């Protein structure tokens, strides 16, 4: 075999290789590189399953548009949108005023869906626990050390509680889940606010740290008497037991898609214009108090009109038709009141001074 024939063969293989990964007939009939528009996003891991579902569904509707989302964490999402390396960022936690001050242009927060943090535990009798904010704070501060503590027993009469030490489990990696949980405790417990505070990484007074939802779930599963916090979707998938929490209205509410949406709906009057709203300890009879928005972050002034319009169209679709895909993945839909506010924000998106959405 001569070297030229080797090169020819190699080229042939290259050409053949290039054709194969296309999406079959659709890819060959059109030249995809010319008219495909890719929206690139990065950020929170929590909404990743929903965003990938959206990417697939949206491409079915608009084959020329692609959504490329990388779940690198909320902090990474904020860093990337600040550096303008992505078309949109995503975060489970609203950006702080300090973070917003450092950006090259005004950033809009677009709530896309709702999630919840649940308090899971490992008790062999596995009763459905009821907990008050004071009890949760007491346990995670290390003041309540045993499951047989009278304060827990009083609330859970009829449930057999073992005489077992409590092992607290928390997220050791920085996470939006920790941010929501500690924001809640900071709001409902003065000792917690004074001693620990809120944030994506905090110094927990007691307990063991697990890496990721799976790390905390692993600690809860392997340690009898353990208690920790994980995302609702994760707790459901992992088959963990979780507690009902007493909300502001004094009722014990189990986390569910309905009670999470109720938390957002109860806020309507108090929803700030920039939509950076906290849902923890929300008012409303049916509200689950450990609920939270997750956000997409976009620049109000887009550089590229074509791309900006595609982004605005996609977000519009996401908060309307896209909401129906959430329930199967344990994401609660946005209440109508919030969608109306989001619409107003999307209408304020501009490119070169021109609005990107027609009315």
């Amino acid at each position, binding site marked *: *075999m*001569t*070297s030229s024939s080797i090169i020819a063969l190699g080229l042939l293989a290259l050409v053949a290789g290039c054709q194969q990964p296309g999406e079959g007939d659709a890819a060959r009939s059109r030249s995809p590189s010319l008219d495909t528009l890719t929206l690139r996003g990065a950020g929170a891991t929590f909404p990743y399953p929903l965003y990938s579902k959206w990417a697939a569904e949206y491409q079915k509707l608009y084959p020329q548009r692609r959504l490329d989302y990388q779940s*690198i*964490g*909320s*902090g*990474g999402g*904020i*860093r990337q949108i600040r550096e303008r390396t992505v078309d949109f960022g995503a975060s489970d936690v609203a950006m702080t005023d300090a*973070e917003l001050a450092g950006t090259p242009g005004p950033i809009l927060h677009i709530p896309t869906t709702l999630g919840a943090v649940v308090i899971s535990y490992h008790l062999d009798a596995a009763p459905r626990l009821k907990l008050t904010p004071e009890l949760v704070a007491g346990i995670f501060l290390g003041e309540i050390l045993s499951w047989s503590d009278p304060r827990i027993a009083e609330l859970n009469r009829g449930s057999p509680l073992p005489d077992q*030490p409590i*092992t607290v489990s928390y997220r*050791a*990696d*920085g*996470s*939006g889940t920790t941010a929501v949980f*500690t924001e809640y405790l900071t709001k409902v417990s003065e000792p917690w606010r004074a001693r*620990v*505070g*809120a*944030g*994506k*990484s*905090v*110094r*927990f007074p007691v*307990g*063991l*740290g*697990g*890496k990721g939802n799976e*790390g905390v779930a*692993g*600690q809860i599963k*392997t*340690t009898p008497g353990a208690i920790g916090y994980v995302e609702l979707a994760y707790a459901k998938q992992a088959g963990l037991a979780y507690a009902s929490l007493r909300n502001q209205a004094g009722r014990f509410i189990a986390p569910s898609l309905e009670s999470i949406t109720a938390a957002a709906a109860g806020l309507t009057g108090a929803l700030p214009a920039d939509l950076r709203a906290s849902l923890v300890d929300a008012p409303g009879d049916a509200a689950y108090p450990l609920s939270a928005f997750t956000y997409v972050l976009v620049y109000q002034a887009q550089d590229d009109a074509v791309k900006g319009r595609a982004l605005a169209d996609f977000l519009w679709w996401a908060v309307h038709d896209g909401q129906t895909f959430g329930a199967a993945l344990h994401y609660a839909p946005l209440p109508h009141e919030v969608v109306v506010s989001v619409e107003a924000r999307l209408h304020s998106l501009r490119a070169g001074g021109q609005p990107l959405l027609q009315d």
Partner: protein
Amino acid sequence: MQPLEPSKPMTRLVTRRRPGRDRPRREGDVADRRFRLLTAAFASTSVVLLGAMALQLARASKPAWRRFGLGFIGGQHWDPSRELYGALPFIVGTVASSLLALLLAIPVALGVAILLAELAPGRLARPLGQLVELLAAIPSVVYGLWGLFVLVPWLRVTVQPALVETLGALPLFRGTPRGFGVLAAGLVLAIMSLPSVAVVGRDVLRAVPASHREGALALGATRWEAVRLAVLPQARAGLVGAALLGLGRALGETMAVAMVIGNRPELSGSLLSPASTLASVVANEFAEATDSLHLAALSALGLVLFGVTLLLNLAARLLVWQVGRLPDGARRA
């Protein structure tokens, strides 16, 4: 390909003749020099990369050093929500878990190496060696999950209560048995670093000339005496290299440690209590850190890890050097 081959020596002949004089050595000189330059370039990339990394880390961590000074290294508190950063709990956690791992791994690895290199017949040594090599190829997340779901419950239920009962008087074994902690991390790291130490150790032992063994055996030494007196002293430097390789793996391991150590940045004298390591806290917090001081503090931890690795390596070399300087009689006794 075959028709090409005869042309090769011909071209070489032509180039050799071109200078007009018959100097067959010259081409070899040039090739030698090129080869030396090439290898030197490869060797220097590792040095340059190391330097570039250290420099980058130093630059990124500047705000943390400016805020805390050298007190950062001795600082005992790590509290991002209060902007308090100190590296000491992580340094202690890293050194404790890695040294524990080496302490557990080296005797076993040495045994494996001696068996594979000296005692086992080839029929057994080859497949056994391959199995050990396979152990080195298992990804660390698998070790971590195994640690989380198998090792930790076993430690909590069986090992740690026994330790507390028998040795509980020592501060090293005090505390509630929870499974997660320095002991679990040390065990996982020991298992992870064992194969590389054992395999390198085997190759080092094999490199000792057969005449040494034969000489010892001819003088009437037993198998064990031959290994102890003729082979091991010869291989000492190489064996230390093998151990340092294991130490490197233990110091830098992230995932498996993060899953079993309990991730608490706290100083505690007990092997039973949870701790945290330099590598694991960086991996845990970096992705979500947005605050610039937090990022700088994490970069500073990276720099500290560099320093700790360097110091431990130096200490090990120094130790070996000291032992090597002892008079023969003292060493044998």
